[in-house]
């Protein structure tokens, strides 16, 4: 136990405390000067329009991911588990999971090509099915860039949560379903009043994981747009990187990191509280 305590305190907890200290300084790495600026970095944070844009993008990420990767995946999992043949159940679970096994870098680069205005699959496909008017420079337009990235992330992530829901649904005792069918409950009714409440714990867990994940988004944005065009697809993670490592403002980057910390901590606590309160026993 001691070793994990040391590792965690040294490399996980201490840096978070240190981050707050760094966020009250400004440093010039070339001269080595460190200025203590108090809360000036936080003041700058509030007045920085890109921070608000990034925050909005993170929330959009969280919201859309909850719709597709939690509720969408739940319905999909229930549908798959409702199939009669075990072989097909396994088949679909595995097929939908494949993108989750691939790194975000690969899928990000892949969708970067798919979204390309000239050689991309998406615009070519739209053209072919007569929806040519929808053609966009998906990653190149300030209106669509972040949503194109979020769409890629749904493509990649829904199979993982579907698999977890499938596991949770398998744990519901078979007899409960049989009894519900005897009572004449249709598939939608069974889904809503039996499967859903009995997997609530999993749903709660998935919501936490999804929100926390949405506030740590970095890789896909970095690979696909680098935060552009005009910072429109910037998220907190990439803006932190841009400030800390490109523009040499470690202190300001640390202040942005503090925002990520607060948001993820709050969602974590709120969700733990919620799942505890609404726990269903069987």
């Amino acid at each position: 136990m001691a070793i994990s305590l040391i590792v965690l305190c040294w490399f996980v907890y201490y840096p978070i405390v240190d981050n707050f200290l760094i966020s009250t300084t400004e440093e010039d790495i070339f001269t080595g000067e460190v200025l203590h600026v108090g809360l000036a970095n936080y003041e700058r944070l509030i007045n920085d329009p890109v921070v608000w844009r990034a925050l909005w993008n993170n929330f959009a990420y969280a919201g859309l991911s909850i719709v597709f990767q939690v509720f969408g995946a739940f319905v999909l999992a229930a549908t798959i588990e409702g199939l009669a043949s075990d072989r097909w159940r396994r088949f679909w679970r595995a097929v939908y999971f494949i993108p989750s096994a691939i790194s975000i870098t690969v899928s990000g680069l892949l969708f970067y090509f798919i979204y390309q205005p000239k050689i991309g699959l998406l615009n070519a496909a739209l053209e072919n099915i007569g929806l040519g008017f929808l053609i966009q420079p998906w990653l190149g337009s300030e209106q669509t860039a972040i949503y194109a990235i979020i769409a890629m992330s749904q493509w990649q992530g829904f199979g993982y949560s579907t698999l977890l829901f499938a596991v949770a649904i398998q744990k519901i005792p078979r007899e409960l379903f049989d009894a519900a069918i005897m009572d004449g409950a249709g598939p939608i009714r069974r889904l809503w009043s039996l499967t859903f409440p009995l997997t609530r714990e999993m749903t709660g867990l998935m919501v936490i994981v999804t929100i926390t994940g949405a506030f740590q988004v970095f890789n896909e944005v970095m690979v696909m747009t680098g935060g552009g065009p005009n910072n429109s697809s910037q998220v907190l993670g990439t803006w932190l990187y841009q400030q800390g490592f490109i523009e040499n403002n470690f202190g300001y980057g640390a202040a942005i990191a503090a925002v990520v910390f607060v948001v993820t901590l709050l969602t974590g606590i709120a969700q733990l509280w919620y799942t505890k309160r609404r726990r269903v026993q069987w």
Partner: protein
Amino acid sequence: MVSTETAAPVKETSIWTAVSKAFLWSFLICLGIVVVYPLLWMAMNGFKNNVQIFGDPFALPTHWSWQNYVRAWNQGVRDYVVVSVLVTVASAICTVMISAWTAFGLTRSKLPGKPIVLIVVLGGLMLSPTVALIPLVKMFQALGLYNTFWALIILYTAFRVPFTTFLIRAYMLDLPSELDEAATMDGASEGQRFWRIILPMCRPIIASCIILHVLFSWNEYIFAMVFTSGTDMTTLPVGLTAIMAKHGTDYSVVFAAMTISALPIVIIFFATQRYFIRGLAEGIGK
């Protein structure tokens, strides 16, 4: 006439079921195509050349030569794979050993302070690597570990121990306590109980923890990008973006490199699917 009237409702339901079944299957199949087609497209583009990629994105390659794959392999992918394998294996061993030992302490020992350790470990689940990024860079620079394999191994271990411990602990809680009580009676030390009795019994969950860790560290990007900067320290995900930057105009090589990097992990998943799902089923939802 009478017979059709009575038969009608039955027929209607069966048509209804058939229609909904058809709808369901076509939905599953369409979704499957959306999932799989881009990946096939990626692999196929590795066989084309630039002119073909620019020409018709849907066309099949005209000839199946491995030339682009060989070039991608020789122009960096091989080195990235070596680094990725090294970091993945080392951090998987560290993570799983530390986590198993911690979970053992949390469930099977009588040490004081267990609740505090539990809070520290599980609290780590909520902390994100992004928040610690800047302090960690400074710390590793000061320790002289910046741009070394150790940096990645330590970080991958530290940030995966909470989740892995969480999974193994849940599994250990369900193991019967009579076994190690008997062993204690026979005078077995704590270490002996861990290595001889508990660890072997945890094999299924250890297997799924290893798979989950491999999945994580093979694909990790932010630490690998920030904490390493030399070409000989580059892991696959970062290496791919480097290839993209260097061979930006040679798309077929980039596609081939992407396919090579995706393939092993997909194969591992299919080969270990049963273990993986069973492990998750045991671990999550407790």
